[in-house]
């Protein structure tokens, strides 16, 4: 099971690494070459000291022997300069390829997440809190990116560095290499233990930061409540408590970190000192040359930093597993199933609900609901919160599938149609519509590419939005959601209505889409709606009688069942639920409140 999971994670990484493979391969090769060049540079200095300056010509290759020292010095320094230039070229390839690889990798991962999220079924979006999903797509992706781009590469290059240096050092002298290398495992082990221990404090700090952030956020969003009740003191007290907790955790972590770094420094400085003392002894006894000695000191110093950060990298790496799990959760959720051979249907035709039942999380929402809406007519659905009235809209657009019964449009089961075609044909306006952060024009035209400004303005007019828009400084070009320009609930709803009207969809469903609009505007929209919708079939869902009363036919839902149906006049005459709600809402219902 666990191994299986590991395979999945590796598979996920491998898949998105594919577009980055060539860039990474180039970058890593360059990184290897760079390490070799660095070693070579140190070796040239060693050669210069031993052969040129100290005149130990014994080790000279044949073609150089007999040249004078000045000549050799020029040669060595030219070689060093050439190596430096090569280092530059290789460094350029390395530093430009690696970001390229990591950008390609992260683009592939981001696109895959986004595409998949778009294709996940409606129910998934209802069940999963948006904040959490956004968090996964941003910070968890960032963690995976840094794992690939920084940690894996750093780990690889450090290991390679240690290997190369070890090889070179051992080839120069075994005894001193053993001393120089003895510290490497000690430092790595020390860092791994430390970072492992401190990891849980990081989690604590993260949680404390979350709590602090929540206090501030709630204080800011609830500013009117805080002020109106004069609760500033208590808010400050709450804030201080969390702020102190967060700061204290970090102070503790900080103290641990200072000890760690100081001790780490002690280790690496002692390492250099050991190499010096031993090196001096060996030099004086003639076991190694001065150049070799200098090379050893140089290598030891160059190893210090990478080795020390290795511990951090290893611990950081272990954290990426959690992030990958969180991403896999999204990517492994099942996408909507699209029918293999979709049928086309006349969406202007009759809509039928035949014995439809639906339960949400095992709670029955609709029970055996049947009704028919003739093409081009208007249906009203009345119900209180929780009566199941919104579910009707979601089932019709096939955002959910019924548990029993079937829904047809123009005689074709909605499950046999292509979802995209169906949903473009069934325009649903939600009670809490989402507006995109672009201009009002673009928001209205979003579902109909290529709409003219005239058409957009007409739709706004039909949704009684023109007046509100004219009050914004930038009119139709006002960007929604930017600082200062936030739309009221009613304005959002009307924008959503305009957006759906503009599509000219053959079926339009308004799910309590006027709940936040005042009575006068509500009426104005309603009177226009039938005309603006053309010959579309309309379904109006509401808990307000006034919204529905002009419909050709009205059904009343209670606890997921149809309890009454008929026209406004018929239902009023009947004196049932509908009439009671109507009386309550008109405020002429003193006798009602006495009863209820």
């Amino acid at each position: 099971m666990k191994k299986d999971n590991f395979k999945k994670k590796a598979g996920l990484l491998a898949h998105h690494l594919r577009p980055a493979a060539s860039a990474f391969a180039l970058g890593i090769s360059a990184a290897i070459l760079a390490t070799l060049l660095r070693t070579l540079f140190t070796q040239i200095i060693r050669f210069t000291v031993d052969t040129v300056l100290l005149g130990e010509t014994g080790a000279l290759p044949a073609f150089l022997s007999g040249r004078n020292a000045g000549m050799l010095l020029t040669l060595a320094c030219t070689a060093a300069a050439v190596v430096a230039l090569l280092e530059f070229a290789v460094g350029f390839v390395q530093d430009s390829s690696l970001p390229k690889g990591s950008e390609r990798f992260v683009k592939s991962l981001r696109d895959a997440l986004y595409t998949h999220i778009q294709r996940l079924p409606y129910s998934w979006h209802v069940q999963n809190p948006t904040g959490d999903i956004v968090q996964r797509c941003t910070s968890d992706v960032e963690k995976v990116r840094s794992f690939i781009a920084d940690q894996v590469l750093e780990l690889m290059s450090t290991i390679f560095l240690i290997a190369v240096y070890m090889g070179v050092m051992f080839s120069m002298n075994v005894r001193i290499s053993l001393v120089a290398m003895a510290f490497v495992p000690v430092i790595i082990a020390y860092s791994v233990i430390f970072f492992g221990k401190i990891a849980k404090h990081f989690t604590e700090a993260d949680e404390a930061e979350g709590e602090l952030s929540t206090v501030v956020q709630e204080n800011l969003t609830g500013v009117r409540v805080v002020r109106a009740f004069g609760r500033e003191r208590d808010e400050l007290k709450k804030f201080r408590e969390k702020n102190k907790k967060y700061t204290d955790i970090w102070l503790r972590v900080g103290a641990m970190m200072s000890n760690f770094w100081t001790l780490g420094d002690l280790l690496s400085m002692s390492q250099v000192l050991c190499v010096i003392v031993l090196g001096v002894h060996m030099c004086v006894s003639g076991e190694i040359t001065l150049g070799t000695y200098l090379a050893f000191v140089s290598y030891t110093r160059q190893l210090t930093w990478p080795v020390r950060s290795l511990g951090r990298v290893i611990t950081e790496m272990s954290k990426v597993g959690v992030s990958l799990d969180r991403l896999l959760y999204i990517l492994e959720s099942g996408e909507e199933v699209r029918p293999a051979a979709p049928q086309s249907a006349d969406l202007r035709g009759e809509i039928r609900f035949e014995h439809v039942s639906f339960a949400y999380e095992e709670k029955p929402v609709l029970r055996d609901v049947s009704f028919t809406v003739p093409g081009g007519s208007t249906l009203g659905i009345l119900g209180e919160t929780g009566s199941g009235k919104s579910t009707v809209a979601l089932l019709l657009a096939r955002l959910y599938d019924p548990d029993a019964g079937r829904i047809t449009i123009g005689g074709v089961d909605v499950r046999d149609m292509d979802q995209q075609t169906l949903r473009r044909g069934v325009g649903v306006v939600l009670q809490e519509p989402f507006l995109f952060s672009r201009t009002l024009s673009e928001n209205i035209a979003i579902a109909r590419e290529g709409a003219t400004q005239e058409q957009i303005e007409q739709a706004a007019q039909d949704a009684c939005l023109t007046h509100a828009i004219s009050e914004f400084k930038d009119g139709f070009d006002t960007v929604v959601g930017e600082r200062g320009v936030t739309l009221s609930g009613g304005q959002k709803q009307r924008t959503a209505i305009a957006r759906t009207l503009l599509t000219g969809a053959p079926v339009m469903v308004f799910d309590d889409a006027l709940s936040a609009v005042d009575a006068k505007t509500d009426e104005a929209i309603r009177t226009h709606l039938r005309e603006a919708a053309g010959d579309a079939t309309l379904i109006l869902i509401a808990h307000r009688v006034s919204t529905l009363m002009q419909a050709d036919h009205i059904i009343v839902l209670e606890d997921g069942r149809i309890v009454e149906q008929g026209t406004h006049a018929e239902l009023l005459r009947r004196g049932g639920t509908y009439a009671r709600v109507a009386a309550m809402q008109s405020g002429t219902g003193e006798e009602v409140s006495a009863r209820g």
Partner: protein
Amino acid sequence: MAEHDNKKASFSLRPWRKLWPVLRQRRWPLIGAIASNLVLAVTDFYLPLLQAEVVDAFILAGTLAGLGNYVMRYLLIIATELIALRLYFASCMRLEMLSGHDLRETCFVNLQKLSLDYYNVTSAGHSLSRTMSDTDRIASMIAWVFPDIIWGFAYILGVFAVMARMSFSLAMTLILLAPVVTLLTVYFQRRLIALNREVRAQHSRITAGYNEGIMGAKTSKTMALEDRLTREFEETTGKAARAGILHGRMRAIYVPLIVCCGAMAASATLYRGGRMVLSGTLSIGVLSAFTTYALSLFQTFRQQANRISQMISQQACVERVADLITEVPTVRDSKEVEARYGDCFHPKMENWEEMCGEVDFDDVSFHYVEGGEEVLSHFNLHVPAGATVAIVGETGAGKSTLVNLVCRFFEPTGGRVLIDGRDVRERSQLWLHSHIGYVLQEPHLFSGTIRENIRYGRPDATDEEVEAAARAVSADRIAAKLPKGYETDVGECGDKLSTGEKQLISFARAVIARPKIFVLDEATSSVDTRTEQMIQQATHTLMSTTTSFVIAHRLSTIRQADVILVIDHGKIVEQGTHESLLAQRGAYYELYTTQLSAQERG
């Protein structure tokens, strides 16, 4: 956000100066950090010298005499460095944490004082990121970047001084390279800062894209917009990738170039120094110290440039925090009032008078924006204690204005608002607010239990009082349904409850406050008819004894009000009782008939 500000990449001390009163409280860790860093700079440029010493003293001399002494000196340096390092880390950590703590608190305290006009134009997210992430960045800059810049200069100067002392002519080789490297650095850093800004801008676009794609998913599914949004998102990620690659490429020239400069400098040193060694004017030990310096010197240049450009790129965030903590509230208590009644954090309740709840508008004029349209002009109204004022009108007609003035969220631009016969400005805001019960259209709860949320209205209320308040508005039903009852956690901002449930709890919260002034701001528009009826019955008693302001766009609620104000386009167009207004056959009559008799017409 920094990404959106197109500020010039230049450094200015002005906003830093505004932060100084906060930061100076932590000057000791700052001094500690700088002092220890200077010691570290000395040990850092002294160490290569010490290491080079062995070449001449022991290896070339062929003797071990004095090695023990040398090791002792080396250990002394190690000890010094370790002590300085420990002090440095501890100071920086404390400096970062404590100044972050102070900055956050200063922001938060000022946010509690700022008036609602600030909140009307500033999103909560914006203030949140100033208080949390901007302060964090500033603190880490003060603690780690600023002392390191001082270290960098000290180190570079120290190295040059040491080299010049050892061999002036050889030092010149390196010193001459310094201006070249400086010029290169300035050239590249400018471009890197600009490219980096682009990278961050693209990043915030990606986050915005996710926000849209996820929060708007339900809407985009109902409209079949998935493919279009995916296409647009892929464009955004493409742009982000290109920006990242471009930035990487620029860095890929700059960083190896500096490394190359270091290696070239080392080669040049080796060549010139080598000649000097051959001619006997320089020792090999000194030469090896020089090559070490050459290799590390230009790395330090690069790091130094990096630190300075960090300071520059964080300039915008310093400015944002400085603006927030120096922003002055438009509504504030006078010195005399504060002396007598205390401020919002230190109330002097012993001096507080009882409130009766009589409200007067005395020749009040008001406009929201300087030079904007007057929404009230020379308005007069006497509201006796216990009376109910209803305010009706269309959405966005400015119905909240009167309430904003009574609550002193805003102050009149002309005339006075009187409570119990005295100008509201003669007493503290906290005094006023402690006597108000407020229910908003969109209920807002705080994390915590149901009990804690109700008690928010009056912190010293007993458990029995909390439950009694809940019963009074039928909110006890919510608690009864839940396994943990009143101890149920409502989640962040009350997210675990439905809007209707949140609204009932916010009613209970207002009731328990035992307000003298009760404000219902379209409080029932988000609940269904049945709940609305329940609330009306519950609040009936409270409203009959308390001065109440009821804002509504549904008229059924307000017929019993003592006075009804009809607002249109921000102006009061009619005023009177239900009957008298109906008799007038004006705007109220029209509103009333559209809304109510529409059903009969249908």
